[in-house]
């Protein structure tokens, strides 16, 4: 502390000069906008005009008053479903490929290839798969019929039960690269002597993977799940491009992101008008969910014993 105090006094102007601009900028344009949504949720008004203080009325509408509560719980269920499926995909398939890649030749070639889908803008991904999966002229159904699997043909994005899983699969396709690179980096940072020692003790590949690699990768599962959570709580681009701003078919893919968008700007055809309080209340709920989710993920994936 002594040394610290001296450093502080000597460098006070440096500290202030180096810190102040970023601190102000970051607080004004990131921290405040998010936290001030909590305050806005207590008012009524339109996007650019606050009318009056209404207490918790917006939350009351969101949770108890139709049509707002139907829209809210529908979006909640869809967002949760999308997150669960996508997180399950991202924590398994990229991991399997990372394990494989860490043991073969030409690894760098596959690494480069596997990252390519994540370069495509989400909005393009949604449009592209909307074309590919189209029931009338999409190439997937054509291909299925060609190989005599016409039985499997479905209105992929138009089916109430399939739409979310299909969008989650599309998400798994585009978001493959980062989880894969993270898992691979995690695997490569594992001490090889430990694995060799286990192998000498007679452990097979599966035992090595299960007993050594997976537990050591726990923090990576944590990062991947957290990223999926943050990405999904405000997911918009993919739904907007593959299923419109109201989540076709018939709101079955309406998520928090799309509902939030409509409550901010209004969407005449869906009976929602620009509603500042409702949008802010929804943002507050999303904020709480993302925080609670992050804390839970952190608790479950913290490496035992360490730190």
């Amino acid at each position, binding site marked *: 502390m002594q040394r610290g105090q001296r450093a502080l006094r000597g460098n006070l102007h440096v500290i202030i000069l180096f810190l102040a601009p970023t601190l102000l900028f970051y607080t004004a344009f990131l921290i*405040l906008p998010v936290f001030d949504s909590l305050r806005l949720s207590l008012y009524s008004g339109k996007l650019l005009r606050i009318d009056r203080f209404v207490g918790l009325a917006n939350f009351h509408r969101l949770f108890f008053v139709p049509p707002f509560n139907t829209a809210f719980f529908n979006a909640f269920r869809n967002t949760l479903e999308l997150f669960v499926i996508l997180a399950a995909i991202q924590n398994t398939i990229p991991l399997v490929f990372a394990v494989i890649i860490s043991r073969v030749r030409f690894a760098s070639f*596959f690494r480069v*290839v*596997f990252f*390519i*889908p994540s370069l495509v803008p989400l909005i393009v991904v949604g449009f592209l798969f909307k*074309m590919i999966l189209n029931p009338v002229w999409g*190439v997937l159904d054509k291909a299925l019929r060609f190989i005599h699997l016409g039985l499997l043909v479905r209105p992929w994005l138009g089916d109430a039960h399939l739409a979310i899983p299909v969008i989650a699969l599309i998400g798994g*396709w585009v978001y493959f690269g980062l989880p894969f690179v993270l898992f691979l980096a995690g695997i490569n940072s594992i001490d090889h002597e430990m694995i060799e020692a286990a192998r000498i003790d007679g452990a097979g590949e599966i035992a090595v993977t299960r007993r050594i690699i997976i537990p050591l990768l726990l923090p990576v599962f944590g990062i991947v799940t957290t990223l999926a959570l943050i990405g999904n709580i405000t997911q*918009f681009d993919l739904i907007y491009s593959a299923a419109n701003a109201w989540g076709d078919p018939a709101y079955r893919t309406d998520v928090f992101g799309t509902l939030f968008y409509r409550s901010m700007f209004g969407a005449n055809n869906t009976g929602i008008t620009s509603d500042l309080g409702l949008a802010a209340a929804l943002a507050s709920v999303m904020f709480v969910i993302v925080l609670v989710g992050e804390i839970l993920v952190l608790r479950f994936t913290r490496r035992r014993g360490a730190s």
Partner: protein
Amino acid sequence: MRGSGRIPVRIALYTVLAVQAFIALYPIVLMALTSVKTNNEIFTHPYSLPRTWVTGNYATIITQSSYLRYYANSVIVTAASITVILGLSLLPSYVIAKLKFRGSGLLYLYFLAGMMIPLRLGTLNIVRTMNWLSLTDSLLALIVVYAAIGIPYGVLIFTGFIREIPEELSNAARMDGASEYGIFARIIVPNLRPAIAAAAIINALPIWNDFWFPLILISSDAKKTFPLATANLFGQYQTDFGLVFAALSLASLPMIIVYLLISKQYLRGIETGALKG
């Protein structure tokens, strides 16, 4: 360990990898090939290589819309945002990493908190603030937003790297009478090249591809970035598949080409960021 295992196992592994590579690439290849086919051929031969390669779809988009303008806007916004991110994150990182003072740990966490909170949740206030600052419908509004989002990653990477720069270097300079500013400019920054590359790379892609904030903040055609323009073109061309696929390709292929040229550095940057995180 590389290349170990019995031959059937190895064949199985490479088959699985090849299938995944096909899944990763096929939709993109299909998109690119469809964009250079005639509409007639798109229906009759959806999978084959084009019999006649047509570039008319691209020509139509570039002449009928201000595509080059959208592209220029995206380049300006991405480059400017990254410059601001690098500058604004380097300064506090140095102070946090090297000048020990009470509250520096807390400050570090405060900066990192931005990674855990999506700014989209503050969209209402972003719109209101930009309106108040008369920045709505300007590229500057986007630059400000992306800079704010990027600062946490910048601080995370730079703080990690600056901590690893040996104290002796700065101390020696201090003995020679260098000021803290001098140390920062002549010792810290030159040692941070890999970190600067990593911070730039990690931030570039999400900014380049972002659709949400342009959709919210930009209204005039001349200020659109290409993801927003792509959504409009898609709606406009919907029934003309050649044009649709050309628009989608125009929005994706340039980044893929850049990536293929610098994939080694790119993936190293991503890994660097990931390992520090």
